[in-house]
């Protein structure tokens, strides 16, 4: 069993629509953030509090927000140092297009950012805008745990019982991914009819990209449906692995979620038995 295929299977299972739902739908992210900030009405506050008791994903979002809305140690030298940097290069400019370059970018007189900073890259990209509007909740957590479990299942399949669990492979982590690919995943005997993924509540459209393993883009389309026809005659061959990914976009065309990159391959046709005519080709 290919570990990547296994991950994809577990991931899809973890977020399936018919799996046991949590006791109640997760609150909107904004509601969790308001809960952390404090302005919720008493009844709503109590409803959120009850939900948090059984939903670690939402509880984690509240913990993140609480760290933002809680008391700020303005006298902390580390905080002061960061604030000083912000004052040194304020974001306010007469034209938003002329806002100062981020610290470390090519235009900045300050020392260049380390290679891992990514600020320059972020400026080149279309801003992603708002965070997703509903907490991923258990479904998001199930997605995350599914990835963890993939390592555990690989262990169960491939290692004798009693060995310590290996760490999950780094490439197995699906970070921040909230679009779940349904298929094609792994290997298939025949051509699937379409690329399919689970719809995202906040999405108005999806951008599907299909690439070869050497990173050549074969298909890049935007669709409002949660599927796109797979036309093998167009660009795909049997026995070749392809990678695909879906990005969910909101009404402004901004990214609200993205899928992990998954792969699939259609198995080669079986060799015809001696004496029989050859099978169909060119699918």
């Amino acid at each position, binding site marked *: 069993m290919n570990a990547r295929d*296994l991950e994809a299977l577990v991931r899809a*299972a973890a977020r399936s629509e018919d799996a*046991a739902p949590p006791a109640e739908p997760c609150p909107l992210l904004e509601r969790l953030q308001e809960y952390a900030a404090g302005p919720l009405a008493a009844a709503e506050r109590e409803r959120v509090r009850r939900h948090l008791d059984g939903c*670690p994903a939402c509880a984690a979002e509240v913990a993140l927000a609480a760290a933002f809305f809680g008391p700020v140690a303005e006298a902390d030298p580390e*905080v002061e140092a960061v604030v000083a940097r912000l004052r040194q290069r304020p974001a306010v400019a007469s034209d938003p297009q002329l806002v100062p370059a981020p610290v470390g970018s090519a235009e900045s007189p300050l020392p260049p950012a380390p290679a891992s*900073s990514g600020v320059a890259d972020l400026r080149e990209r279309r801003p992603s805008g708002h965070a997703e509007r509903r907490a991923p909740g258990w479904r998001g957590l199930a997605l*995350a745990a599914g*990835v*963890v479990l993939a390592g555990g299942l690989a262990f169960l399949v491939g290692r004798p019982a009693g060995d310590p669990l290996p760490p999950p492979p780094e490439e197995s982590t699906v970070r921040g991914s909230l679009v779940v690919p349904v298929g094609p995943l792994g290997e298939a005997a025949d051509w699937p009819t379409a690329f399919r993924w689970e719809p995202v509540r906040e999405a108005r459209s999806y951008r599907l990209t299909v690439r070869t393993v050497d990173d050549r883009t074969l298909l890049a389309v935007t669709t409002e449906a949660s599927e796109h026809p797979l036309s093998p005659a167009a660009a795909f061959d049997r026995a070749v692995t392809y990678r695909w990914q879906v990005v969910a976009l909101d009404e402004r065309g901004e990214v609200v979620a993205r899928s992990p990159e998954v792969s699939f391959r259609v198995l080669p046709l079986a060799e015809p038995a001696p004496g029989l005519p050859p099978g169909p080709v060119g699918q």
Partner: protein
Amino acid sequence: MVVNEASDEELIASSRAGDEAARRAALEALFSRHYARVASWCLRLAGDRDEAAELAQEVFLRVQTRLDSFRGDSRFTTWLYQVTRSVALNRFEQQRRRAVGSLDDEDVAEPSDPAPSALERMADGELRARFQQALREDLQPLEGQVLYLHFGLGMRLDAITRMLGLSNASGAKAYVVAAKRKLARGFGRWLQGTDGEGTR
């Protein structure tokens, strides 16, 4: 209007209605009053003042370019947090992409076992339900939170340790290890036990 006494929302209104000088003054006042809050959160996330400064600056760049989309449906600080969180999630994604890199030949190696029967049955609805049940019932709340932040949002373990104020020796890592063990022991063994027979 005295900018130092104005509410956030009044400053935003002023930045939209006034002349250029008033707009700048309003925005500078608005941003300055939130610098420490954003800086503090970014520090907890990054653990390093250089990285925190980059992140915080990206936040305020984003706030300025997107302030027109703030409709006042929520408090400005809530919206500011949403922008901050979004910038941080983008940063996590970028770090993940750097760590993973593009798929190489090893990533798409041919499967050694094309049809293990138990794992094929992941498409089974009962199996999916059992898996979600294991997530809800087998993990401690804090283990679930750490899993979500690390694998769901992509936060580094050291950042989770700081954000959740974990004081144990190995921080968030210990919670991930414990969660993996529990999931493998519960659901994983149940799955193994159903392998090959086609019965549940």
